[in-house]
């Protein structure tokens, strides 16, 4: 309850601090507008054209359902990767042997391009939700796994010994010794993985499905409709920015505050 009140009280100041980010994004739009002046409508329409196309798509209602479908797939893959990656990563971090064994596997997973997984997924799952969800899972899993493993491996051994020597209750040991440290590794990994999920899902949809933002992008590409393509890209990037700055960044700050007070 207290945390919620504090979060609400800090919200206006947090939102106001976003003006600096807004300023640099607007400068990017100015750069885009400038470049658009050199190329035609076909190559690079100006930001106003893209924004008004996006407004039209959103007002028509069609964009929301496509975004919803894409978000569902991205989140499904992300949640699976989060659960499996965190659990297995922590487990691997607890044992030196397991860490040693898993390292090359993770390297292989990270090194394999998502597009290769996508082709395999198409063969295995066909056209449908399975392909994008699997591709997202495979792309996000190793990032979370590595974060969790490093978090578990680097827990301060002396601190853990101290906690054991003073016979700290298990719950206190978990929340005051292990969790803050592990979370400080896990959280950035989750955020990175979420960004990856959102990017990979659009790519997977472009090739594998008939609905979602990626499929819409495939349609605008075949129509040579650059303005609509940019509008969809704006929608994807805008959603990512909103999730990042309205949800994850405040959460991260809350976690960091909690870390610094313990």
């Amino acid at each position: 309850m207290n945390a919620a009140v504090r979060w609400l009280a800090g919200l206006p100041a947090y939102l106001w601090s976003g003006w600096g980010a807004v300023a640099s994004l607007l400068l990017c739009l100015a750069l885009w507008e400038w470049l658009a002046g050199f190329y035609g409508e076909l190559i690079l329409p100006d930001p106003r054209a893209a924004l008004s196309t996006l407004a039209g798509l959103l007002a028509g209602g069609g964009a929301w359902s496509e975004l919803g479908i894409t978000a569902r797939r991205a989140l499904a893959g992300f949640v699976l990767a989060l659960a499996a990656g965190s659990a297995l990563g922590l487990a691997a971090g607890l044992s030196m042997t397991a860490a040693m064994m898993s390292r090359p596997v993770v390297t292989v997973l990270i090194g394999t391009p998502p597009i290769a997984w996508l082709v395999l997924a198409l063969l295995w799952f066909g056209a449908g939700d399975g392909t994008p969800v699997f591709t997202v899972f495979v792309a996000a899993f190793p990032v979370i796994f590595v974060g969790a493993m490093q978090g578990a491996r680097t827990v301060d051994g002396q601190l853990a010994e101290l906690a054991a020597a003073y016979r700290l209750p298990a719950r206190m040991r978990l929340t005051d010794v292990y969790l803050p440290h592990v979370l400080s590794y896990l959280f950035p990994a989750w955020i990175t993985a979420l960004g990856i999920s959102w990017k990979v899902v659009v790519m997977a949809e472009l090739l594998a499905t008939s609905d979602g933002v990626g499929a819409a992008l495939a349609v605008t590409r075949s129509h040579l409709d650059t303005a609509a393509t940019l509008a969809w890209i704006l929608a994807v990037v805008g959603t990512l920015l909103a999730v990042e700055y309205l949800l994850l960044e405040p959460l991260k700050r809350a976690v960091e505050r909690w870390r610094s007070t313990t």
Partner: protein
Amino acid sequence: MLSAARWRVGLEALLLCGFRPFFLVAAAWGALALAVWLAALSGAPLLSWVPGGLLLWHAHEMVLGFGVAALLGFLLTAVPEFTGSAAVPRGWTAALSALWLVARIGGLFGGAPGAWLVALAETTLLAGALAVAAPRLWGDPERRHLAFLWGLAALLGCVLGYHAAVLGGGAPLPWLYAAVGVLMALIVVALSRISMRVVNAALEERGDGAQEYLARPPRRNLAIFCIALHTAVELAGATLGAPAAPVAGWIALAAAAALFNLGNDWHLGRVLFARWVLPLYLVYVLMALGYLLLGAASLGFALPLSAGRHVLMVGGMGLSIYVVLNIAGRIHAGVQPESGPWVPWAVALLVTATVLRAAAGFAPGWAPVLWVASGGLWIGVFTVHFARAWPLLSRPRADGQSGCAGVAEDAPAAR
């Protein structure tokens, strides 16, 4: 004989410190030049012979007459103080004031001689100000105040471009718009110095020692960068013929966001509503709104660009100048800033004048009425200020100190 001696005493008092003549003429000319403009708008046959037309005269006098007078008054006083260098000699103050006056008189003459007179006087004025400020700003071991130097140099560039256009038959207005941009950047630079003292003094007065106000350089630099970029792009678009309007529009929106971003330094609780803090904060808010309107107009909203420009000028420049006239214009004469009800009223009236002038852009049918209402408030505020400042600044200091020295430590608090 007696009257000659009194004249001499009065003149000596006026030239005691750079802000004295310049702050007085800024207030007087701010009111007078606008009254002439409003009278001409209402159909009075005034100044129909001025070169370039009356609109150009109005813009020129408000930016390079009123604005520059206040700026020079501030710099001649603040630069020696900030850099710990020697005070500006009385002869320099007298010469610069005379040049400013010649430029105003020249502006009232028609034809090429008048235009040349203004051009020479104004160029020499700003070059002279640079000659006074540059060695002091450069000689400061830490060189922390060079931004004023770049600002003055940019302003001199705008003045040169303006007069080259007037004398060569080009388009002079874009150079005045650029000068407005330079003044906006200089306001951010100057307010960051002034606000550090004002806000921290207000915090101390409230017994709020735990908080400290800091005008953080990255935020300030982002705002200055956006303003400078907007100025440059707009000027390039107008003078080089580049298709700049939408590009400048986005940059204007970025400048608005960057100015709102400055508010993050100021949100320290109720101290924001303290007597001298709120007006300074409002300067940034009005500047941000001005750039917001400018950006919207450049990006195709049905709105004249002049609405945004006037929010910058009336709100950003007018209000900041009024506040500086009331703080620096008293402290360096040896008295505390006023504590009576007039100043808050004047601030409210200036904000109202800004809103009314902006409203004229939204309701063209009502524009003539709104112009007169807005201008009337402006004239009233600066006339009253002049009447109140004249007795203080035209007489020798009563506190026994000399030059630009601030209020003595043991001085009694203001009424």
